[in-house]
């Protein structure tokens, strides 16, 4: 289950980067290697057969690069616009993952929310994380889910 979830998230991120940003050169590696002081953290809640959340950690430079490519404009700091665009991308990736897994499980996603670091770590039955490297920067995914009882 963990391997399948991990792979589906990596594949969905790959597809979204390819279609929306025209970036195909993507690889994944353990999240332990992820180093970034400043990140835009977006949490997507998951409800249904699995319950929990996925936290997308976008370093500031990755966030700005993504919005610059999409808009063709030059953004130099993370503001409400950038956070909203990045949140929508996290929403799109998560939606694509659940569609890909819909034959195995029925789940829905909740609207994206900015995640505040420092909150108490929650205990999850299924816990995995991944760091995805692209030509415009890295992204870290932290997946924490419980099976619905």
């Amino acid at each position, binding site marked *: 289950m963990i391997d399948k979830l991990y792979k589906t998230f990596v594949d969905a991120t790959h597809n979204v980067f390819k279609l929306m940003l025209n970036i195909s050169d993507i690889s994944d590696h353990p999240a332990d290697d992820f180093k970034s002081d400043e990140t835009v953290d977006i949490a997507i809640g998951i409800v249904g057969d699995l319950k929990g959340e996925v936290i997308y950690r976008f370093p500031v430079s990755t966030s700005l690069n993504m919005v610059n490519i999409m808009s063709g404009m030059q953004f130099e700091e993370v503001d*409400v616009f950038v956070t*909203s665009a990045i*949140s929508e991308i996290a929403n*799109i990736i998560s939606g694509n993952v659940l569609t890909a897994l819909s034959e195995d499980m029925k789940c829905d996603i909740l609207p994206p929310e900015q995640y505040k670091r420092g909150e108490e770590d929650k205990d999850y039955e299924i816990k995995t994380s991944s760091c995805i490297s692209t030509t415009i920067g890295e992204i870290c995914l932290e997946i924490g889910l419980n099976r619905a009882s």
Partner: protein
Amino acid sequence: MLWKDEYELGVPVIDAQHKELFRRVESFLQVLRSKDRWEDKIPQINETLEFMKRYVVEHFRDEEEYQKSINYPGYKYHKQIHDDMVQYVQEVSKQYEQSSDNEDLMQQFGGRLLAWLINHVAAEDQLIADYAKKKGMSGNDR
């Protein structure tokens, strides 16, 4: 430029509407992100919001008619995505009318609209073109 030729579906009416949507969104973003005072941007922001409310509904209707005409199997799912976006535009518009300090609301709307539109046209709508092409009905060779 926001629009890219690879977004073309090969259905002239829909492609023309997509180009118009991208053109309007691009000009909306330029106003939204300009260094001008917020008060000076309001007339064009209002105009775009009114356009979006009207044009998005019109375009989605035409696109859905096309999907029905080719018996597109993903019609129901695609229509739900359209309905959700129409509802979002209407909600934002209502909040905008009721709020006095609405720059953040519009910045938030602009960011989401940008990502949503690119994904919708570059990914979701291309599935329609792929289906039409497979059935030998229309769609560009990609």
